[in-house]
């Protein structure tokens, strides 16, 4: 009897791609930097694995990244299950509106793109840019 998480091979060890683990993390970090440069409404972002491990992040120092990543993965998982239970298909994105800002979670294969966006953001433009990033991330997961 055995279970395996084989889905993370690319992210974990670079065994399936011609890139070292460090190289992959660096690529991911660059993707986030580029996202925040091209989309000023995004003020914090992270790429996490569905098991709650952080792959790359640009979030405020005071945030406990590990716990935040676990929360984001859980929120996405629960939302996805709820949609399936209600027979509404796959989850496209999870938008959480707060008084101070908004959080958007999007699946990218076995990764999750997590972003914090300003409360008065142009959502159409933000979503468009996030989808581009998701497509890019799918190459790794």
């Amino acid at each position, binding site marked *: *009897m*055995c279970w395996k*998480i084989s889905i993370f091979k690319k992210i974990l060890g670079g065994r399936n791609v011609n890139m070292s683990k460090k190289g992959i993390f660096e690529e991911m970090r660059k993707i986030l930097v580029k996202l925040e440069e091209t989309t000023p409404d995004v003020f914090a972002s992270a790429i996490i*694995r569905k*098991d*709650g*491990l952080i792959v790359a992040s640009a979030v405020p120092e005071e945030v406990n990244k*590990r*716990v935040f990543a676990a929360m984001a993965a859980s929120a996405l998982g629960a939302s996805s299950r709820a949609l399936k239970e209600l027979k509404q298909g796959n989850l496209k994105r999870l938008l959480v509106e707060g008084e101070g800002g908004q959080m958007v979670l999007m699946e990218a294969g076995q990764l999750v793109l997590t972003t914090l966006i300003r409360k008065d953001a142009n959502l159409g433009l933000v979503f468009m840019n996030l989808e581009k990033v998701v497509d890019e991330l799918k190459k790794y997961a």
Partner: protein
Amino acid sequence: MKEEGMEVTRFLNIIIYGFQKALWEVMGEAAIAASYPVGKSMLEIMKKELGLKVAGEKPEDVLNGIAKRLTEDFKIAKEVKIGKSGDTITVDVEGCICLPVTQRLINTGIKPFACPFTNIAMAAMEELLGIPTGISSLEVNSPKCKIVFEMLRK
């Protein structure tokens, strides 16, 4: 008295199974994300209330230290062997008291995410060495269990 103890263990295992199954049904594979916070809480309590001291500069030292306490003092398992190759750590556990839960979960199609050794080890590795760790696989061959971790050094 020994039989009474076994019944208590069996009952606690049923509770652990129930919680894990419920979390899995609600969150799916994202339930694995709970492993780290669970381990962090367990490690804190074990340090404060049970005097667990974890130290070491290498992953295998930290894990061997935990394994020693869990087997010799807390009697959670009969034997735990740690192996390391690159960023992969292999943990061979024999006679774990939680094995029936793990077995039942795998039989039900659930990836066990509340294995006490795994969770404590993950939390300790991150706390002491700053190395995030994820589970790659868990293989049960009663009474033995093989857990494989991957370290995510950045």
